[in-house]
């Protein structure tokens, strides 16, 4: 294997980490509430703007603001669940989709109105620093994003497996009716799950700012890929989102190197193939689970 090929693989895995970072929250929300949050990318946009403004006005390092952003986005997510999704839970899936698509468009335009279409970037001392092994280069901010995604996957997975609240969330994800009969507070768990999923993009916003730039429609750059990742990994599966992210990152890097003109075609072809042959994804929770908003 040549040096270039190894570098392509490294780039792919690191890019995959970024996709995983964004997909984890999306898959969590989907897995529990069975709602596809089309405004997920816009939540990321908000988080990135908050990270930018915190850096701009108070000089807060985006990695430090990631923690604050997680809390902030948790509140925004929980409020969205309570105010927009909850009243629509009994409505057909299309209604919920319209609601989140509407929210996404609203947020984009509010951002455009408040902050203009300028591209804003953060300058940090470490943004171009890298680890060099021979001729190979691993960008430090990308490595941090990758590590963040991995840590987040482990923490959330552990939380769902081992804590009482985590088990309650899983219970309600598996069988809404039965869980409610067991005395689990559905509204509370849904708010918690939506908040947690949104908190993930809060962290992502902080970790991505040293790499990317923020503008009102930045979310659309990532959300489409995040949907592919979620479907590939199995809707609702946290580990699946991590693995799916890496796979898509690798596919993008390799096809981008060898067949650049077909880069997007390649991973959307994969998307269609998965939907055709394994709609529940690599680690899918079994057939029928991909159904949206089943009562």
């Amino acid at each position, binding site marked *: 294997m040549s040096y270039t090929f190894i570098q392509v693989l490294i780039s792919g895995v690191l890019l995959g980490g970024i996709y995983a970072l964004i997909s984890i929250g999306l898959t969590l929300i989907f897995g529990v509430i069975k709602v596809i949050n089309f405004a997920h990318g816009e939540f990321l946009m908000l988080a990135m703007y908050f990270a930018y403004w915190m850096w701009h006005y108070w000089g807060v390092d985006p990695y430090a603001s990631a923690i604050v952003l997680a809390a902030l986005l948790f509140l925004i997510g929980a409020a969205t669940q309570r105010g927009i999704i909850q009243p629509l839970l009994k409505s057909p899936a299309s209604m919920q989709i319209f609601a989140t698509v509407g929210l996404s468009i609203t947020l984009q335009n509010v951002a455009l109105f408040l902050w203009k279409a300028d591209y804003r970037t953060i300058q940090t001392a470490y943004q171009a620093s890298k680890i060099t092994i021979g001729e190979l*280069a691993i960008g430090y901010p*990308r490595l941090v994003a990758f590590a963040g995604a991995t840590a987040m996957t482990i923490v959330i997975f552990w939380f769902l497996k081992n804590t009482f609240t985590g088990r309650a969330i899983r219970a309600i994800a598996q069988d809404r009716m039965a869980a409610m009969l067991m005395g689990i507070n559905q509204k509370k768990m849904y708010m918690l799950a939506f908040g947690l999923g949104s908190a993930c993009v809060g962290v992502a916003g902080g970790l991505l700012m040293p790499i990317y730039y923020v503008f009102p429609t930045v979310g659309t750059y990532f959300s489409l890929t995040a949907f592919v990742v979620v479907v590939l990994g199995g809707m609702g599966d946290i580990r699946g989102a991590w693995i799916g992210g890496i796979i898509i990152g690798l596919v993008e890097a*390799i096809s981008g190197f060898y067949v*650049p003109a077909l880069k997007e075609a390649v991973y959307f072809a994969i998307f269609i193939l998965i939907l055709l042959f394994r709609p529940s994804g690599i680690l899918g929770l079994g057939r029928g689970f991909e159904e949206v908003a089943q009562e």
Partner: protein
Amino acid sequence: MRIRSVSCLAICAMVLSLGFAVIGSPAEAAETVKIGAVYPLSGNLARLGEESYRGAELARIERNAQGGVWGKQVEYVVADAPDTNAARSEAERLITRSNMKLLLGTYSSSLAYVATEVAERNRVPFFEFGAISDPITERGFKYTFRTCAPASGFGTIAVRVIAELAAPKMGMAPKDIKLAIVYEDSLYGTTCAKYAKAEAEKVGMPVVADEPYSAKTNDLSPVILKLKAANPDAVIHTAYIADAILFSRQAKELNFDVKAYVGQGGGHSMLDWAKAIGDVSGFLNVDFPQFKINKAYTPGLDEFIKLYEDTYKEPPHSGHSLVNYFGAKVMFDAMEKAGSLDADKIREAALSLDVPEGQTCTGWGVKFDPKTGQNVRALPYGLMWTKDQEQVTIYPSEAAVAEIIVPMPTWRERGQ
């Protein structure tokens, strides 16, 4: 029934003709010449559309202060065209309802493309001051005139900057310089790349990499790695802002250095890009005339800036106002010479204009190609970014205020 509707029609016709007479006469009495202006003044394109309109407006104010055209004051009838549908209908309205005999505009290529088409169909001359897409003047229209540089000039000048300025400094002949052409794959990037490739072939510069990519990508490392493998001496890159930032950041990460790197306007002209990169000294770019230019080559530029600041109480936002100001002045000269707004007389007058380079506020000359209506003496300029994140003119040499730095600093030398 029939009689009634006929009489109805007759009354309507009478009222209408009366109306026209009433509206028509005072305009003739007052000594004004009305011409139609089509610009995007609302919507997405409004920011630079407004800046463009200001340039044309300043030229009008100045002309009127100097006595106007044929001793009459010039007045614009302004139409807002935020999108192509509006451009079509507004051009139509200005010509058929407001009876305009001459139109100007538009800043945006897609708007210009449809507006000029409407004008041509109605035999109304159209002066385009700011849209750069080549096909606007490649349709064989008789009454469309473009005063500014076309897109093809960008790729051409980029290659010339490398061949004429950078090559001697590298101690290499143009034919020994390995050139890589990178571009986002929409119409903008592919157009610039096409003309860069054509010019490279002309000067015998070998193209070792030809890399299109989607401007919406999240990762340009595959592109950069391919460039690294091709090991070029110079890169010509056409990008919007997001991909320009991403490319520079990842090039820094992957240690991709070249001796000369030329942008093609777009993202590489924007301060947001420079801010995202930090030290941008030595990065080259091609664009419309900027304000850091040899003033001896652009007489009238300082007066323009002063007029702008006096009128709008702020400095110009971009060079868009300047090129529109230049264009409007050329148009007024053509009108003056034609003696009337008759389409063929305007065409004849426009084609007879002959101003060499270096005598106008943009440094551009005036000579319209009778086949296309393109001003062949307008080409974009070679620019270089400084440490202070300003663009200074380096090409052509008559307009230059700084000397090219070749090889440009490597990423390591830039620190961080």
